[in-house]
């Protein structure tokens, strides 16, 4: 479907929801539950037990703010934006009570992951996901938030009530742990 038709269809769906059309609500769930669940799962792994609640909460927030949807961007992107806020709220709660480490050195150099040259990108993705899942939760959350959600240490500090230095130290420790596990897996693969 051309993008303009698709946007028009999205706007019609939003208008039908505003008119409280029950079948439009069903279409809304059918169309967007898959992409939402996929995104939330990827950002919460391996805390699968929280995924359903966040997906449901995202739908309810989207419904309550559907009058803000103007059809200027695909509805999928709009609702994923809401999900992103929900995921960040989850990260904030997880990090708020984590202990900030003492001073740490973060001078380690890593070889370029060379992802462009990798024959099997899937294996890099699997390795990354498996390391993230095995990390302590506060390390996993801070790495996902910083590198996959692209938030700065200052932004994370502002919403978690920690100092920027504290978040930077936590990030340094998390990177160090991730890097060590990455090299360990590289050695395993080479052996």
């Amino acid at each position, binding site marked *: 479907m051309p993008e303009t038709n698709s946007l028009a269809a999205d706007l019609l769906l939003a208008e039908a929801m505003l008119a409280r059309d029950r079948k439009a609500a069903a279409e809304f769930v059918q169309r967007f539950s898959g992409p939402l669940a996929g995104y939330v799962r990827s950002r919460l792994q391996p805390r699968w037990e929280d995924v359903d609640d966040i997906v449901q909460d995202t739908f*309810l927030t989207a419904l309550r703010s559907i009058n803000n949807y103007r059809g200027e961007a695909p509805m999928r992107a709009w609702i994923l934006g809401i999900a992103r806020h929900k995921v960040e709220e989850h990260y904030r709660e997880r990090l708020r009570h984590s202990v900030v480490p003492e001073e740490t050195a973060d001078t380690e150099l890593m070889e370029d992951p060379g992802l462009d040259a990798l024959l099997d990108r899937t294996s890099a993705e699997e390795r990354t996901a498996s390391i993230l899942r095995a990390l302590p939760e506060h390390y996993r959350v801070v790495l996902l938030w910083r590198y996959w959600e692209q938030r700065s240490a200052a932004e994370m500090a502002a919403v978690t009530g920690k100092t920027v230095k504290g978040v930077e130290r936590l990030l340094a420790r998390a990177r160090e742990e991730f890097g060590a596990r990455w090299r360990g897996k590289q050695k395993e693969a080479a052996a």
Partner: protein
Amino acid sequence: MNIDEWMERLAAGTALEETEQVSSRLKSKIYSSLILALEEGGPLLPLPETKKTGRALCVFEQLVEILPAPDAVQSLQYCKVCHAKALGERIENAPIYWSGCPYCEFQNR
């Protein structure tokens, strides 16, 4: 490169994609909660109006839709008393097969 740049490159190249499969029970529960939220804002769109938009009604809704009933009756959510809702919310791939029923359409068959 330092480990910060390395992590940035790694994240840019790995989407961490997960399956988009959703259980029919979750879809059913979300739909039920959306309907409750819609009703908090006022009566649902009457069934004849919904039919005009081209969206399919289930057999029970069709029966109500042809009645000469006022909007207050046409706006009621009949799924609340239907076995399809109860089964859809509790059983994955529930044995429900009504055409035009959201709870049946949510089944991953």
